[in-house]
């Protein structure tokens, strides 16, 4: 298990006041909230700072954490010393009982055994209908074009006969309809928690997430592709083969195409009503001057083409 430096995570000094800690957390929480931030690791960062704040906002937990010493470095292999929290008084809030998903490091410090007083796990209010569940399903962009069947494995906590919590696994085969978009949900009726006393089961909501693709980018129902071109294809015009998630097509490149120029292939984005478009972005690439013949060719261009790409810069 790795030691986590909660002060560094929040960007505060070890002697920061509770107000400073709160301020730092609030600012970072707004910055990395997964619904607001577009950064790739926002969700992990948000969890980390939430955990750091959970440990430091409570003066008792913070004092116990500080007691561990300043000698630990972030990432160092860590095991809490036995009885490390002995000698601290806790006012009943010792046990962190909400359902947030904290790191092993946090659990080892502030999990069930922390402090002497155990506040019970909060029970959800009684609800006869089974609870709805939510899960993410990762699909390929091609699945959105063609539809697919995906097998997903879900884990949910359940009680065994002796009342212990264990992770129950189940596998579902789910049809992914053609035309799904990033972030859309699929509702599977009756696949949530079982109802109580004969009431209906809850539903399962699957959130669609596209796996990052090595050549395409997706924006809503539009798809973008960077298309490398040779200087002569771009300068003279050409007909080139372009991949699309539906298979390759021939694309006419106009004479004098510049790098960054976008070409729209109508209705070749994610299918639907209306269908998205596929945007092909021209990227002009240079052949390397790695042979005598290639060098000569470049030298010839240098001599024969009076080309100054910096004329607009006045030099």
């Amino acid at each position, binding site marked *: 298990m790795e030691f986590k430096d909660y002060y560094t995570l929040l960007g505060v000094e070890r002697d920061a006041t509770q107000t400073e800690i709160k301020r730092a957390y*609030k600012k970072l*929480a*707004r910055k990395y*909230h*997964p*619904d*607001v931030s577009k950064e790739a690791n926002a969700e992990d960062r*948000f969890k980390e700072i*939430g955990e750091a704040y959970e440990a430091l906002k409570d003066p008792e937990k913070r004092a116990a954490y500080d007691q561990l010493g300043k000698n630990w470095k972030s990432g160092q292999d860590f095991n809490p010393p036995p009885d490390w929290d002995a000698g601290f008084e806790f006012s009943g809030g010792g046990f962190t009982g909400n359902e947030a998903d904290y790191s092993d490091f946090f659990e080892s410090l502030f999990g069930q055994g922390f402090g002497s007083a155990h506040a019970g796990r909060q029970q*959800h209010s009684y609800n006869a*209908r089974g*609870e*709805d569940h*939510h899960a993410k399903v990762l699909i390929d962009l091609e699945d959105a074009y063609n539809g697919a*069947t995906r097998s997903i494995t879900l884990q949910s906590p359940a009680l065994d006969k002796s009342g212990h919590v264990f992770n129950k696994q*189940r*596998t*579902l*085969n*789910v*049809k992914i*309809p053609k*035309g*799904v*978009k990033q*972030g*859309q*949900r*699929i*509702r*599977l*009726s009756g*696949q949530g928690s079982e109802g109580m006393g004969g009431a209906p089961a*809850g*539903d*399962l*909501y*699957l959130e669609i997430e596209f796996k990052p693709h090595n050549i395409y980018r997706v*924006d*809503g129902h*539009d798809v*973008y592709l960077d298309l490398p071109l040779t200087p002569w294809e771009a300068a003279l015009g050409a007909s080139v083969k372009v991949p699309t998630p539906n298979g390759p097509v021939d*694309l*006419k490149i*106009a004479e004098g195409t510049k790098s*960054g*120029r*976008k*070409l*729209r*292939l*109508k209705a070749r984005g994610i299918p*639907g009503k209306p269908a998205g478009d596929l*945007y092909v972005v021209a990227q002009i690439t240079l052949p390397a001057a790695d042979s005598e013949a290639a060098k000569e060719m470049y030298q010839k261009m240098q001599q024969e083409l009076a080309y100054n790409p910096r004329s607009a810069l006045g030099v």
Partner: protein
Amino acid sequence: MTQQILKGTLLNEQAELTLNDLCCACSRPAEWVIELVEVGALEPINYQQPQWIFSGDSLQKVQTAMRLQRDLNVNLAGVALALELLDEIDSLKSQLCRFELNDDI
């Protein structure tokens, strides 16, 4: 283990959700969803009718609203503002992507 293939409902703009569906899906009371409608963060398809119906993509909005309120301690008017600004950022980004478009084929 079942080999049956489950076919769910895709919650796109054409799908319909009831007030109860939204409440169950985000474990929030009806009053909370109604308040979201009152602050203008959420729009039923049939505002004038007694039984509200919401489009399928409302679920994303409601869940985002729930998380913003829970994690950032924003009130519902603030949630409505954040949702509007997030929508605007998204549409500006898409416009920016398309702005440099030179050619239609």
